[in-house]
């Protein structure tokens, strides 16, 4: 391979592993210098093209997707699905009436909490970084509270298409599971289902669900957490 061809291949890809090019680079000092310059230039390009990711960017994408899904217009299949559901509802009406003491939302929350089983391990295993907690709360449209020291576990979860913050929070030496739901129109109420007791409160156009297994201290804890997670997210741009 001559110098011209070596340099042509090097300009296309300085890391090119063509055997004849590599041999030429070992024999020709000038082409070797040329190739090393381009390799160095590529390394500098990696530095020069760095762009800081906006704060909470991944969480915003997930939130945006969740909001988009929620506001999607019903399609022909949606209507067909609704019609099929209606027929099934008539067929299974007696069973549905029996199960209607618990709304699907409560049972889904409880099913999710049971699946995670966050109380089963040592709470200290679940301590998360403040930055991670902030991102998780941002995904639920909530600002990080000034005092977040009582949050001992946090994750983002998706329940029935809604992104929400799933927290384990301490209050008066008791642990509570807290869900912070952005723009959720869940009515305020108390519930009890499958060994779990819970309370849902509305705060600044969002809903907060607080659950524990004893039902003790739920009311005061819900009041505390409603204040703690009441601050809406201050984003730079509208999603």
């Amino acid at each position: 391979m001559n110098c011209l061809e070596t340099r042509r291949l090097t300009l296309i890809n300085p890391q090119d592993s063509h055997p004849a090019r590599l041999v030429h680079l070992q024999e020709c000092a000038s082409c070797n210098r040329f190739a090393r310059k381009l390799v160095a230039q590529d390394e500098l390009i990696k530095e020069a093209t760095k762009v800081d990711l906006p704060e909470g960017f991944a969480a915003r994408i997930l939130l945006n997707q969740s909001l988009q899904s929620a506001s999607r217009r019903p399609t022909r299949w949606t209507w067909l699905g609704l019609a099929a559901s209606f027929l099934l509802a008539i067929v299974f009406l007696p069973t549905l009436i029996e199960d209607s003491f618990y709304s699907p939302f409560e049972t889904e929350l409880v099913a999710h909490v049971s699946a995670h089983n966050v109380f089963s391990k040592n709470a200290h295993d679940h301590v998360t970084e403040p930055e991670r907690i902030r991102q998780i709360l941002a995904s639920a449209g909530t600002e990080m509270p000034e005092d977040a020291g009582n949050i001992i576990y946090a994750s983002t979860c998706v329940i029935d298409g809604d992104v929400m913050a799933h927290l384990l929070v301490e209050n008066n030496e008791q642990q509570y599971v807290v869900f912070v739901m952005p723009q959720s129109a869940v009515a305020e109420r108390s519930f009890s289902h499958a060994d779990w007791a819970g309370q849902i409160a509305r705060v600044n156009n969002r809903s907060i669900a607080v659950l524990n297994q004893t039902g003790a201290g739920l009311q005061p804890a819900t009041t505390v957490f409603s204040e703690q997670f009441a601050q809406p997210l201050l984003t730079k741009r509208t999603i």
Partner: protein
Amino acid sequence: MVTVTKPEKHKKFENLVNAYSGWLHRYAYWISGNRTIADDLVQETYLRAWRFLDSLKEESAAKSWLTTILRRENARRFERKQFEYSDVELDSLPATQSDFDARPEVTALRIALKKLPATYREPLILQVLEGYTLEDIAEIMSLPRNTVATRLHRARQKLKHQLENDERISNELS
């Protein structure tokens, strides 16, 4: 018994967001020239990806798939606005950027990259930052392999010439 619906799709989507949103944002910035547009492009890309997530059969193809979607979203922007790629002006990166490399040679290269025509800059970014092969880039950009090779050749040649005019860079690289 009630179960949580669509968990696998959501998990898959979340993984894609966590794994590739950084790369897509960087790529979007360097092809759109504007941080706000880059944000929007990535958001639109993921919304589209969510709608067609079932068509992604192999996880290993996810990055190229998302990159292609983003590229098409950017092309739609041009169709809507009726202006040419050559009109793109890269805005300045904020000085507050946490890992902003302010070395003179990096700054000079950043300026040189901004001056580079988008048709040359794009394949270079794909190759240098993500190690895409000529074939990968050809597929993403819907171009013949030889065209991609020519553009990469010219991109490096132009950059090299621009940088060699700056004595500091030349010293640094030699």
